[in-house]
C-alpha cells in the first residue's frame, strides 16, 4: 500500500476539544480553514472524504454477540447507560473474531459538529469513523502467534488498550489520558493489569498514536519491551512516524 498524499495542519490550543458529550469544535473558522487548507494541498477536488474523529468522543464496548442477532441492534441495547438519551446515539460496530464486536456510540451533536466542519470546508463526506476503531481494525490484522498481544492506542485526550490472542479480543479498555509526569509508568502498569484481566502473560506490547514514539523510548529506557504497532517503509508516502498515526489502521484493515 502506498499513500498518494499526506498533509497536516496544526490547530491552536483549544480550537478542538474532544468530548463525548459536548460539541467539540470550539473555533469553527479555524478548524474549517485548516481542513480546507489540507484538502487544497492534497488536491482532493470532489473526492469524498472519510472523516476520522479523535479518541475520547465515543463510548466503546466489547460485545459477545448472541447468535442470529443484529450486531448494531444488540449494541444499542447494551448501551443502556449512556449519559444522554439513547435516541441521540449514533451506533456502529467493528466485528472481530470469536463472535464478538467492538461497539461505539457517538452522541449525535458530536457527530454533527465534525460533519459541519467538513461541509463548511466545501468537502463531500463519505463516512465518519472513530480513531480507536480504525486503529484496532488494523492492529487486529496482525494477530500474533498465539501469544497475548496488548495494543495501546493513544489519542490526544484518551487512550484505549486492547488485549487479544489469535485475533480474538478479550479485553478492551478506554480511558482519559493523564499526561502529567509519570504517564509512561502509569500506562505500563495499566497494560500489565489489562493483560492480567485477559488471563495470560503479556506476549507482545504494541503502541500507536499520539506520543507513541516518546512512550516507546521511555519504556525502552526502563527495560520494558514494546514495539510500534506499525512502521512505514521507505517511500510509503507517510512523511511522519507512522506509529504516531493511529488512523492508518483503517487503511491496513
Amino acid at each position, binding site marked *: 500500500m502506498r499513500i498518494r498524499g499526506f498533509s497536516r495542519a496544526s490547530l491552536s490550543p*483549544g480550537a478542538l*476539544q474532544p468530548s463525548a458529550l459536548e460539541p467539540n469544535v470550539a473555533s469553527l473558522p479555524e478548524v474549517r480553514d485548516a481542513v480546507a487548507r489540507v484538502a487544497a494541498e492534497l488536491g482532493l477536488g470532489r473526492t469524498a472524504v472519510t472523516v476520522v474523529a*479523535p479518541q475520547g468522543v465515543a463510548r466503546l464496548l466489547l460485545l459477545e454477540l448472541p447468535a442470529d442477532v443484529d450486531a448494531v441492534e444488540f449494541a444499542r441495547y447494551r448501551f443502556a447507560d449512556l449519559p444522554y438519551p439513547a435516541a441521540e446515539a*449514533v451506533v*456502529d460496530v467493528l466485528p472481530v473474531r470469536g463472535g464478538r464486536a467492538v461497539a461505539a456510540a457517538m452522541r449525535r451533536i458530536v457527530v454533527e459538529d465534525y460533519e459541519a466542519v467538513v461541509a463548511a470546508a466545501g468537502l463531500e463526506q463519505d*463516512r465518519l469513523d472513530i480513531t480507536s476503531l480504525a486503529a484496532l481494525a488494523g492492529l487486529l490484522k496482525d494477530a500474533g502467534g498465539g501469544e497475548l498481544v496488548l495494543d495501546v492506542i493513544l489519542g490526544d*485526550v484518551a487512550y484505549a488498550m486492547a488485549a487479544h490472542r489469535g485475533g480474538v479480543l478479550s*479485553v478492551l479498555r478506554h480511558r482519559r489520558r493523564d499526561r502529567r509526569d509519570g504517564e509512561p509508568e502509569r500506562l505500563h502498569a495499566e497494560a500489565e493489569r489489562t493483560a492480567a484481566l485477559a488471563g495470560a502473560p503479556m506476549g507482545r506490547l504494541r503502541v500507536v498514536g*499520539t506520543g507513541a514514539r516518546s512512550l516507546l523510548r521511555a519504556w525502552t529506557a526502563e527495560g520494558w519491551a514494546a514495539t510500534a504497532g506499525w512502521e512505514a517503509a521507505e517511500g510509503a508516502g507517510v512523511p511522519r512516524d507512522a506509529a504516531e498515526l493511529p488512523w492508518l489502521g483503517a487503511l491496513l484493515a
Partner: protein
Amino acid sequence: MIPARDFSTRRRPRGRAGDVAALVVACALLSAAVYTALLAWADARHARASVDAARKEIADANARATALQAAAAAEGAVGARAVWSVEAPPPRIVQALAELLPRDVRLETLNLRYGAQLEVEMTLTARTAAEYDLFLQALESSPAFDRIILGNESRTDAVRASVRARYHGGEGS
C-alpha cells in the same frame, strides 16, 4: 479496503471508489487538552441514597426470584433458573461482591440474570482508577466469578464503569 463502518448522521450509499481520502481531525499535537473537570465525589446524602437504591434493587430482585421459584414449582419443573435463584439468591451475590470491593469503590447498580448461567452486571464508581483496578483484580482472582467482560469505563479523576461476569459460586466451571 476500508471497512464500511460509518457514524455519519446521514449514511450514504457505498461506492467502490479507487481512492479514499481520510480526513483526520485531532487536537494540535502541542495543545494537550487538560481536563480539570472534577467529578464531585458523592457526599453523605448521595451515599445514603445509593445504599437505599441498592437495597431496593435487592428487594426487587428477591421478589422476582421468589416469583420465578413459585412459577417453576407450580409447573412441576425446577429448571436452571430456579436452581440458581435458590443457590445464589441476590443477597449472596451482593455479599460476594462486597468482599471484593476496595474501600473507595462503590457498587451503584446490580442486575442479576438468572438462566442456565447466572450473569451479573454491575456499575461501579471508584474514587481513583487504581482503586477500580484493584476491584477488577479481585474480581478476576475470585473463585466465585469468571467470564469477566469490561463494559463502559469513563474517567475524569474518578472512574465510573460497568462490568459483567458470570457467578458460579466458587466451584469452578
